[in-house]
């Protein structure tokens, strides 16, 4: 079954108020084209889940700047002073998790489980008394699964069935989010026919993917950020 969709149709499936996971760690893996279309369509009151807020004027930050985001669930937004300021002013709710805990909460939803027991941060200020569980004589922190209505994913390559291959450090949260969200929308600059991948080398099996949007080209969003180049 072909899962090809146009950019406009794929994003139009997202209603205002939706919970949306967004792949990417910094630029790599950020689905800029899907995000830019979401900015264009203007859905509001979104809850977004992403490792970071990208940088001013790019990616997820554009949704925040455009007033479409009610809440951000993330690990670190140190490269985005605008979002930090907005958070401090109360203009956006931000929920922070340790990076591997955010990954694992998403992965737990993706595996069809409901929570997991950890000791990360158990005696730090991020842990509340009501998160603690004494079980078989040991105290654990319970971290609940984190799912979403939608996931927006960038894949280096895909096929019509939704099989995905990622590249470089753009893997990061994408395969986890593809498993965890109810409806998974993928953008790729390289969409081909089934059979193009060695079956062992598929990162995300097509069963987890609902829509694949072919991109004719990658905009400058996807390029090198000159201020991160060490001279």
């Amino acid at each position: 079954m072909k899962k090809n969709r146009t950019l406009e149709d794929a994003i139009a499936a997202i209603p205002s108020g939706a919970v949306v996971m967004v792949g990417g760690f910094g630029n790599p893996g950020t689905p800029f084209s899907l995000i830019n279309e979401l900015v264009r369509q203007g859905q509001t009151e979104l809850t977004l889940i992403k490792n970071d807020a990208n940088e001013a004027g790019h990616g997820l930050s554009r949704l925040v700047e455009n007033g479409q985001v009610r809440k951000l669930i993330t690990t670190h937004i140190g490269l985005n002073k605008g979002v930090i300021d907005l958070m401090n002013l109360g203009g956006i709710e931000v929920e922070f998790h340790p990076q591997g805990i955010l990954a694992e909460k998403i992965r737990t939803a993706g595996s069809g489980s409901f929570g997991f027991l950890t000791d990360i941060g158990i005696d730090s200020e991020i842990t509340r008394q009501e998160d603690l569980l004494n079980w078989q004589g040991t105290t654990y922190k319970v971290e609940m699964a984190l799912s979403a209505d939608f996931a927006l994913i960038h894949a280096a390559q895909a096929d019509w069935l939704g099989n995905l291959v990622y590249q470089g450090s753009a893997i990061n949260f994408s395969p986890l989010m593809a498993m965890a969200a109810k409806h998974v929308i993928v953008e790729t600059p390289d969409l081909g026919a089934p059979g193009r991948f060695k079956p062992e080398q598929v990162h995300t099996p097509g069963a987890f993917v609902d829509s694949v949007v072919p991109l004719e080209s990658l905009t400058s969003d996807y390029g090198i950020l000159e201020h991160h180049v060490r001279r």
Partner: protein
Amino acid sequence: MSAVERILSRAVKEITPGSIVNLGIGLPTQVMHYLPDDFDVQIHSENGILGAWKQAAPAEMDPFLIDAAGAYVSLREGASLFDSAVSFAMIRRARLDLTMIGAFEVDAQGNLANWKIPGKFSPGIGGAMELAQKTKRIVVLTTHTDKHGRPKILKTCRLPLTARACVSRIISDMAVIDVTDRGLVVREKLVDITNEDLQAQTEAELTFATGEASV
């Protein structure tokens, strides 16, 4: 040598051949540039890299390949790339030998505070908490005092902790200090300074190892 150069040139000696090492954002990532090109080490970056290496040549920079600090790294032969769950599984399963990490404060019990200054700085905890809590050996790289000249090596951290009793060693621009059961022990001095003057710039009580190295 500048203060930073003193820290980095000493820090690089902490990396043993064959080890797996994470270099935190800030001073630690710069340690990479002090490693010989053929040094046998695998640099882990928490965004999903084992085998990250120095910045790629301009023609080979890949916009889809950065380390956790945002640098356009190259890869060693034998590198692997994986998702964030696997990356932090590697951390939590203590498959890393060493993490070098920055600090706002570090104390005599090896407590580390490096992620939040309430009311001033709260960008989120990133991967620091898991690295600090789970890596076999944590070495803190830090200036000995802050920009106002106030000690950063304290009796007890005042800021929210990243992790408790996690630090094995502190490398400052002045000294190499180990966290031990009997408190902080100065192993080496990196500048020409008396024990008394070093203690004066340190809130925590220092013990001086007999025969500690000097500059």
